[in-house]
């Protein structure tokens, strides 16, 4: 897959920039935008994604509609496979690295990377998928003091090295591009299977919080559409499609 990369020193949000330009037809699928600083980076349900200049790698990708609309959520799982490979290459040790459903990456149970995808339509009615990706790069322990939902870590805290986020981008575009190419040539049926193998989540006891609801159970499988199937005990199974997972 070929990417056209746009770099900015500062943006309100890479997802917003990509969305506004894509909706009006100014950029095409394969466009990637990276900003050294986001003043208004957002996570799920509008939660703020903290960042200072050059602390994190924050980029968004405009993607072809490679999946039927009912299976679009698989795209976040697929991109997390690419981020996992890219991070493994950077840190050289995967023993503490794991995927957390649906698409976070943790190191030593601390959040290192997160993904939020959006789907919308262009003004000429084409379906657009935008993936926003964040990776903690140069933050220190002091940067993560305060009220974080999940303890966080950074590449710097793991390896002791500081890196330029812009210089890291090609590594991650290559590793994500590998999986996007496979989606184009092989279809989608392998995505959930490879994700669950990579996550090692099968058989783990987990808790999913969604709003005021909490569900705890043993992970049985990830369905072909990416949904998490939990065994709650006494023969009761529950399929989960949203929420925050903890183990």
């Amino acid at each position: 897959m070929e990417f056209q990369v746009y770099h900015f020193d500062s943006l309100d949000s890479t997802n917003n920039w990509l969305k506004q330009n894509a909706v009006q037809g100014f950029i095409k699928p394969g466009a990637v935008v990276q900003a050294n600083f986001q003043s208004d980076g957002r996570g799920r349900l509008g939660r703020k994604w903290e960042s200072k200049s050059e602390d994190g790698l924050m980029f968004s990708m405009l993607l072809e509609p490679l999946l039927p609309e009912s299976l679009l959520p698989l795209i976040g799982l697929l991109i997390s496979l690419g981020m996992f490979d890219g991070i493994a290459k950077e840190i050289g040790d995967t023993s503490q690295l794991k995927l957390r459903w649906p698409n976070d990456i943790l190191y030593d149970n601390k959040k290192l990377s997160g993904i939020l995808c959006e789907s919308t339509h262009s003004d000429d009615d084409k379906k657009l998928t935008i993936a926003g990706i964040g990776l903690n790069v140069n933050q220190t322990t002091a940067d993560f003091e305060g009220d974080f939902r999940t303890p966080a870590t950074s590449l710097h805290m793991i390896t002791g090295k500081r890196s330029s986020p812009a210089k890291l981008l090609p590594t991650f575009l290559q590793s994500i591009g590998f999986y996007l190419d496979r989606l184009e040539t092989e279809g989608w049926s392998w995505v959930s299977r490879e994700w669950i193998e990579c996550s090692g989540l099968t058989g783990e006891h987990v808790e999913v919080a969604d709003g005021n609801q909490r569900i705890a159970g043993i992970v049985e499988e990830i369905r072909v559409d990416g949904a998490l199937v939990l065994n709650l005990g006494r023969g009761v199974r529950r399929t989960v499609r949203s929420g925050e997972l903890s183990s």
Partner: protein
Amino acid sequence: MDYADIRRLVKLVETSGISEIEIEEGGAKLRILKQSSVVQQMVMPQAAPMQMGYTAPQMSAPAPQPSAPVAVAPASKLIEVLSPMVGTYYKAPSPEAPDYVQVGDMVRPGQVLCIVEAMKLMNEIESEVAGRVVEILPRNAQAVEFGQLLFRIDPS
């Protein structure tokens, strides 16, 4: 069974006298139906006891993907907007933000009506027609199924 296999099966059904084929393999079920000149594929995981309902993801080749399934209610001229995927319905982009639409609002084609989220993918559901929002059926943060009725819009 991978995408290439599915394509081969679709081709087989297209070029043969077969009107329908159904295959189960590795927990996935594939059903291909030939209806006049249109070939439809449906792929669904096998049903499991005591889990939330799941309706088959659907691909119609080569028709373009609509922004959301739309049906005309038979007893009136109201347009029904249906959920294009299984997920959680959100009436606003964040808990603090105003609702995308409220009952009585006039909407235009392409206007965002709500979000359906699954697995951190926020899918904007848009109106395909101009009209007035007559009814909003789900509650905020409610789980919705594929094809579930979300809105009724009066285009008149």
